[in-house]
C-alpha cells in the first residue's frame, strides 16, 4: 500500500476542530434567575433549583441542620407524601434528589425531555410548600444517624474528617455536613422548616436548566410554577470560616487497629474560588497532583508503588475551602509516602516548574473542557459554579485565553501564596501503633480512638 509508517514518534495532529462553551441564557423569571443551556443530541433534560445557603448557614449549635433539611425536602410536600412523590417521578422515568452542600441547597430533577413540565412543577412544589412532616422527619433522622454510623467505618471519610476538624475547628467547614449524633438527635421538624423558610427565596435562588427544551416554553412553565415563591429578605450572614493555617504542622491519627491499609489526607486552606490568579492555581494543581501524570502520582505510585493512586484537589467553597492531597497507602509505607508528599509540596514551593511540565499541563487543561461538558450533569455543574461564585457568563469562554498567559513564574507565585509547607495538617486513618512512630517527627501527634474511631464520635 503506502510508505511504511513511522512509529517512532507521535503522529502529527490534524486540523483543530473549534469549540465554544455552549450558549448560555441568563434571564430573570419574575426576579428568579434562570441560567439555561440547551443541548439537543438526546431526549433528556436536567433542571435544578439552587438556593444559596448550605451548611455554611448551620447555626453553630446545630451542625448538620442544613443537611437534614436538604434531605427532608424530597420526602413530601403539603400536597403529596414521600411515596407519592417517588411514584410520580419514577412513573415518568425521572430522578429527583434534594441535598444541602456547604454553600447551597439543591433540588434537582433529571429525566426524559417530555417530562420537563412535571420536573419544574415538582421542584417548585418542594421549594414553596415542603412538608416537613414529623413522621417523615423521624424516618430521615434515623437514616442519617445510620449513615453517620456507616461512615464511621470508612477510612477515607475518617481521614478527611480529621483534616477538616484540625483545619477549621468548630467554625464553618469544620463540622460534618451530616451533623453529629447529638445534633441530629436534637433537630426538630420545625427547625428545618424555619431554616428553609429563612433561606429559600426568589432573590437568593437560581434555576439551572440543561438539555432538550424550548426556551420560551421553559420560561412559561417556570413563571407559572414558581409564581408563589416569596421575594425574601436578606438573610443573616453565615457564621464565617477560618483563614489561617495551623501555626505548625500537626499530625492526626484516627486509629483503626485492624486496617490493612492507611488513608492519608494531607492539606491546608486553599484560596477562594474567585482568586484573581485562578488560572495559575489550576495549572499548579495539575502539575502537582491533579492528573495521572502529576508529580505526586508519578512519585508515589509509579516510582515507589506505595499506592494505587495519589492526587491533589482544591475543594472549592465560598471563602477558603481545603486544599488536599490524598492517597490510600500500604501502612508500612505511610511515613515514606508522607515524606514524599511533603517533598513535592516543598519542591513546587521552592523551584520553577519546567517548561515541559507547564506546557503539558496547560494543553491538558485547554483540551479537556469539551470532554467535561459532554453530560448534562457536567454542563449543569459549570452553570452552578457561575451562579454560586457569581462568575461572569463568559468565564469558561475566556478561561482558555487566561490559561495561555500563565508563566512558570506565575505558577511559582501561586505556589508561594497557596502552600505553607511547615503549617500543614497530616491526617491518617489506620493502625495507630504502626503510624505514630512513622509520623511522630513531622509534628505533634493527636490520636483519635474509638469505638467507633471517629473524630465526630464523642461530641
Amino acid at each position, binding site marked *: 500500500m503506502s510508505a511504511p509508517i513511522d512509529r517512532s514518534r507521535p503522529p502529527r495532529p490534524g486540523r483543530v476542530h473549534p469549540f465554544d462553551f455552549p450558549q448560555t441564557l441568563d434571564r430573570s423569571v419574575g426576579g428568579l434567575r434562570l441560567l439555561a443551556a440547551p443541548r439537543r443530541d438526546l431526549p433528556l433534560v436536567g433542571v435544578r433549583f439552587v438556593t444559596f445557603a448550605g451548611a455554611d448557614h448551620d447555626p453553630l449549635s446545630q451542625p448538620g441542620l442544613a443537611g437534614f433539611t436538604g434531605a427532608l425536602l424530597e420526602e413530601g410536600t403539603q400536597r403529596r407524601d414521600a411515596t407519592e412523590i417517588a411514584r410520580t417521578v419514577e412513573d415518568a422515568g425521572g430522578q429527583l434528589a434534594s441535598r444541602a452542600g456547604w454553600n447551597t441547597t439543591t433540588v434537582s430533577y433529571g429525566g426524559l425531555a417530555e417530562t420537563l413540565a412535571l420536573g419544574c412543577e415538582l421542584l417548585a412544589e418542594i421549594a414553596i410548600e415542603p412538608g416537613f412532616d414529623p413522621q417523615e422527619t423521624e424516618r430521615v433522622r434515623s437514616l442519617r444517624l445510620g449513615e453517620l454510623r456507616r461512615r464511621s467505618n470508612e477510612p477515607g471519610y475518617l481521614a478527611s474528617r480529621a483534616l477538616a476538624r484540625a483545619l477549621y475547628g468548630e467554625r464553618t467547614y469544620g463540622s460534618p455536613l451530616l451533623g453529629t449524633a447529638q445534633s441530629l438527635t436534637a433537630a426538630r421538624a420545625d427547625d428545618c422548616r424555619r431554616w428553609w423558610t429563612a433561606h429559600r427565596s426568589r432573590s437568593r435562588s437560581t434555576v439551572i436548566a440543561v438539555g432538550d427544551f424550548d426556551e420560551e416554553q421553559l420560561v412559561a412553565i417556570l413563571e407559572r410554577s414558581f409564581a408563589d415563591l416569596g421575594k425574601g429578605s436578606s438573610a443573616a450572614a453565615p457564621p464565617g470560616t477560618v483563614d489561617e493555617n495551623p501555626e505548625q504542622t500537626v499530625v492526626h491519627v484516627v486509629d483503626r487497629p485492624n486496617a490493612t491499609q492507611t488513608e492519608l489526607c494531607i492539606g491546608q486552606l486553599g484560596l477562594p474560588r474567585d482568586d484573581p490568579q485562578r488560572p495559575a492555581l489550576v495549572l499548579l494543581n495539575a502539575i502537582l497532583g491533579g492528573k*495521572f501524570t502529576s508529580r505526586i502520582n508519578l512519585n508515589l505510585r*509509579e516510582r515507589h508503588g506505595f499506592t494505587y493512586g495519589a492526587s491533589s484537589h482544591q475543594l472549592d467553597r465560598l471563602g477558603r475551602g481545603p486544599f488536599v492531597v490524598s492517597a490510600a497507602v500500604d501502612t508500612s509505607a505511610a511515613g515514606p509516602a508522607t515524606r514524599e508528599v511533603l517533598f513535592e509540596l516543598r519542591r513546587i514551593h521552592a523551584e520553577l516548574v519546567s517548561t515541559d511540565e507547564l506546557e503539558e499541563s496547560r494543553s*491538558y487543561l485547554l483540551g479537556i473542557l469539551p470532554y467535561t461538558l459532554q453530560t448534562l450533569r457536567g454542563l449543569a455543574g459549570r452553570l452552578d459554579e457561575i451562579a454560586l461564585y457569581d462568575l461572569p457568563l463568559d468565564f469558561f469562554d475566556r478561561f482558555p485565553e487566561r490559561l495561555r498567559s500563565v508563566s512558570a513564574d506565575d505558577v511559582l507565585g501561586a505556589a508561594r501564596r497557596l502552600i505553607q509547607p511547615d503549617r500543614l495538617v497530616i491526617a491518617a486513618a489506620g493502625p495507630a501503633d504502626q503510624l505514630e512512630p512513622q509520623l511522630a517527627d513531622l509534628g505533634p501527634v493527636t490520636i483519635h480512638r474509638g469505638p467507633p474511631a471517629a473524630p465526630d464520635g464523642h461530641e
Partner: protein
Amino acid sequence: MPAPPTLHRHRLENGLQTVLFERHDRPLVAVNLWYHVGSKNETRGRTGLAHLFEHMLFQGSKHVAANEHFRHVQQVGGVANGSTWYDRTNYFETLPAHQLELGLWLESDRMGFLLDALTPEKLETQRSVVMNERRQRVDNRPYGRAVERLHELLYPAEHPYSWPVIGAMDDIAAATLDDVRGFFEIHYRPSNAVLTLVGDFETGDAIESVERWFAELPSAPAPHPLRHGLPPAPEPRHEVMEDDVGLPRVYLAATVPAYGCDEWDAAHLLTSILAGGKASRLHQDLVYRRQIAQEVSTYVFPTEECATFLAVATGREGVDPVDLAAALSKAIDDAGAAPPTEAERHRALRGQLAAFYSELQTYEGLADAIGGTTTYFDQPEWLWSVPERLEAVSPAAMAEVAGAHLAADRRVSVTVVPRGTVS
C-alpha cells in the same frame, strides 16, 4: 425517540474488527478497544493475571516509553483508562478530534509491540500498585470481602466467575514475567479485539488511518472461546462474617441466564421493580414502612457465561440481620409467585430507558457500549434494540425468571455483622 443511527463496520485482514460511528456535535473522538479476555480466562490458583496485565499495558511498548501513554494523551487534553471484567478487558481514550491518529498510534503500538518493552522492574512496581488497589477496593473497605465470598458459594470452584476479577493477594504476588508474556501471546491479537471509534471524523479517512496503523500487525487465530455457561444450582448456603462495620448487611445471590437472553432482560427489569428507586418494593417495604433497612439494591451482572443476580440490604443499627434476610427472601419469593402489576412494569421500564439514554451521553459511553455488543454478539446494532427488548418484557416473564432461577433452593447468602457480634 430518535431513529437508530448508522454504524459502519470494517474488518481488517488480520482479523481486527472495527466499528465507526461518525458524529459532528462536539470536537472529540473516542477510541475504544475491547479484548475478549478477562478473569474468566485464568485458572484457580493463578488469578488476577488479566487485571495485572491491564496495568502492564500502560507501562510502555516498543515506541512509547514507560508512563508516556498517559502523558501523550493528557498533554493534548485527552483522558485514558482501562478496565478489567470477568469476560473482557477494555482500553479507551477520549481525545480532541484532531488527535485521532495519536490514539491509533498508541493502541497499535501496544497491540503489536508490547513485549519489546516489558521489564521485571515494571512488573514489580505494578504488582505492588495492584496489591494496594486490592487493599483499597476490597480488604480495607467495609463489607469489601463479602461479594468475593458470595461468588465462592454461588459457583463451583472450577467456574471462572467463582474468583474475583482483581485476583487473590497471593496469586498477584506470585505472578511472573513469563505469565504476563504468555497471556499477551494468547489473548492480545487483532482477531481477539474490537476497535470502536466514535466522534468527529470522516468515516473513509478514519478507516484509512486504522488500516495504516493496524494492518501490518501479524494475524493469528483468535483463541477458542470459553463456554462454561450456567452452572448447576448451588447448595443453598448461608454464611455470617464479621467485619469492621457499624451496620449489618445481607447479600443474597443466585444465577440467571447470560446477558443477551430474554431471561436476562426479564431479570434486569425485575431488579428495578425490586429496588430501582424509592417507589420500588424493597425500598417501600424495608426502608420506608418497616424501617429495618438503611438502603437496598439489586443487580444483575451483564456477563456472557451466565449472570449473577444480587440483592443487598444494609440494616439499621441494631436490626437483627435474620429479619433483614427474611424480608429480602420474601420479596424474591413473591416475585416468583405472581407477576408484577402493569404499573410496576411501566415504572421500571421508564427508569431503565432513561438510564439507557443517559449512559450514551458521552462518546466514550457510546463507544464502550458498541464495543460490548460487537464483542459479545458480533452485532454492533444490537445496542439500538435495547429499548425494544426492555419494552418486550412482560410481567409474566419476570415472574417466570424469578420462579425458575431465583427460588429459595437456588440462593446463597452472606451476612456481614459488626465485629464481636458473633459469639
